[in-house]
């Protein structure tokens, strides 16, 4: 497949870097201010040189001499949307995906915004297009959460829950292990690059909630006979509380009783909820550090657990490229 990669951050760059290994070719790359588009004069195949793009981004902060819009207009089979996740109108990601679908091309999203905030609008665009959308990378990084739910069939999945934010999980794990308070551990996480300078998105539960909203949309639309009857979820429908104010003493009390606290997200076709919850200390859901876990409750196949790395450039790119493979 010929890919246009929009967004050249950790995820976009890894997709550019790894696409060849998966048998795909990158024909365009854009960041916020520049683009490079293969001109087809290269003789062999028409792709851009991935190493050159990544090097140029590292050295000069741009990917090429073109305008970002050039990448959207390039001759690709699938657009990879890896710009920052935004809430509300989910722009510019939503428009990028719309452009691809209106051109009857596929879109693969790492960006959670459009699938969490405008799932109905996306479905409508897909209906009028020969293109499809896929978004495995938006939930649980490398963990195949969405495709597993699809394989089981959403109508046979009663709930999906799990630990879906590595930053919050790292903080809770360290607080419990070291008996430290939130502020201490947050500073440590920031030093290690596990938490961002402004950690709100992760520690307030927003990121986990977006992932659960996406799962709720998959369950709701997937189980409905007629998509017009499906309930659409957005972040506003989620009941969210984060971990910012969890005191060290609460984790100690939990530990005394063989338990611990994890930020757990739960999605059904009817509700979305993210909150710190008490779980058995050695239980399946008590993954440690930045690990994520997705637990799928099914009608006929019991409970499935998939744990693994929930973030990271190559990890997320692996989910993106898996999606690209499913579109072939």
């Amino acid at each position, binding site marked *: 497949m010929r890919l246009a990669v929009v967004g050249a951050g950790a995820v976009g760059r890894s997709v550019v870097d790894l696409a060849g290994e998966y048998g795909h070719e990158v024909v365009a790359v854009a960041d916020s201010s520049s683009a490079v588009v293969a001109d087809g004069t290269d003789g062999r195949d028409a792709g851009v040189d991935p190493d050159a793009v990544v090097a140029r981004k590292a050295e000069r902060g741009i990917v090429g001499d073109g305008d970002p819009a050039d990448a959207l207009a390039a001759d690709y089979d699938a657009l990879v949307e890896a710009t920052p996740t935004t809430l509300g109108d989910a722009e510019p990601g939503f428009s990028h995906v719309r452009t691809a679908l209106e051109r009857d091309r596929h879109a693969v999203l790492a960006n959670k915004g459009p699938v969490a905030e405008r799932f109905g609008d996306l479905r409508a665009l897909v209906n009028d297009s020969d293109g499809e959308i896929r978004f495995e990378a938006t939930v649980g990084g490398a963990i195949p959460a969405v495709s597993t739910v699809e394989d089981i069939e959403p109508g046979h999945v009663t709930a999906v*829950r799990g630990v879906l934010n590595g930053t919050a999980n790292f903080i809770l794990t360290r607080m419990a292990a070291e008996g430290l308070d939130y502020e201490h551990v947050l500073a440590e996480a920031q030093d290690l690059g596990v938490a961002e300078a402004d950690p709100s998105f992760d520690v307030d539960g927003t990121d986990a909630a977006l992932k659960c909203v996406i799962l709720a949309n998959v369950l709701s639309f997937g189980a409905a006979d007629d998509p017009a009857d499906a309930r659409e979820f957005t972040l506003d429908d989620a009941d969210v*509380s984060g971990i910012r*104010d*969890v*005191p*060290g*003493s*609460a984790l*100690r*009390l*939990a530990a*005394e*009783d063989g*338990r611990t*606290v994890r930020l*757990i997200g739960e999605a059904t076709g009817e509700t979305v909820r993210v*909150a*710190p*919850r*008490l*779980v*058995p200390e*050695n*239980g*399946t*859901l*008590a993954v440690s550090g930045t690990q994520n876990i997705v*637990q799928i409750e099914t009608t006929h196949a*019991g409970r499935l657990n998939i744990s693994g790395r929930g973030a990271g450039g190559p990890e997320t790119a692996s989910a993106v490229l898996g999606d690209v493979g499913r579109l072939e």
Partner: protein
Amino acid sequence: MSDGRDGVPEETADGEDATADGGHAATTPSTHTVRLELVDEPGQLLAALHPIAENGGNLLSIYHERGNKTPRGRIPVEVDFEATQERFEGIVEALRSEGVNVMQAGTERYAEEVTILLFGHLIDTDLSDTLSQIEACESASVADVSLAAPQGTEEVSSARLRLEARAGETEAALTAVRELAAEKDLRLVEPLTGVEA
């Protein structure tokens, strides 16, 4: 490894499995323990024992915990009696409809246990009142409380509570605690109920 276990139906609390094995459990009397809360007034104990005898319960012992009052200033009384499962349920219902507060209706299959954490200004917001209000909700009673106030009583402290809920009423009990927590601006960490590790 544990494949075999998955095929065994879980014990249900509605007595269905009792009939499945020939009905013994439903017709054979067994010993039950009930914890009652009585107002400290004459005649209260006798009034409370009435529904037990009247509904076919065979009284075995009564343990009156004088001096040990509940957070609401009531006197806890532990009563042991024999009854079949069916009658036992009738007795608990009769006690409740007489206005007797049944804190814990014994035998494991009747009670559901749930552990929660509360944190915030627990002491400033009157912890004992918080506990009494949880007790006051029909669905649950507080079986155990551990408090941690590492920064003194005026700072944020945490408590771990073990609640005993009537069968099938864990969700109702949690809802009551949720509302109480919201009212007092306390944070509640709920367990993942129904999800074994």
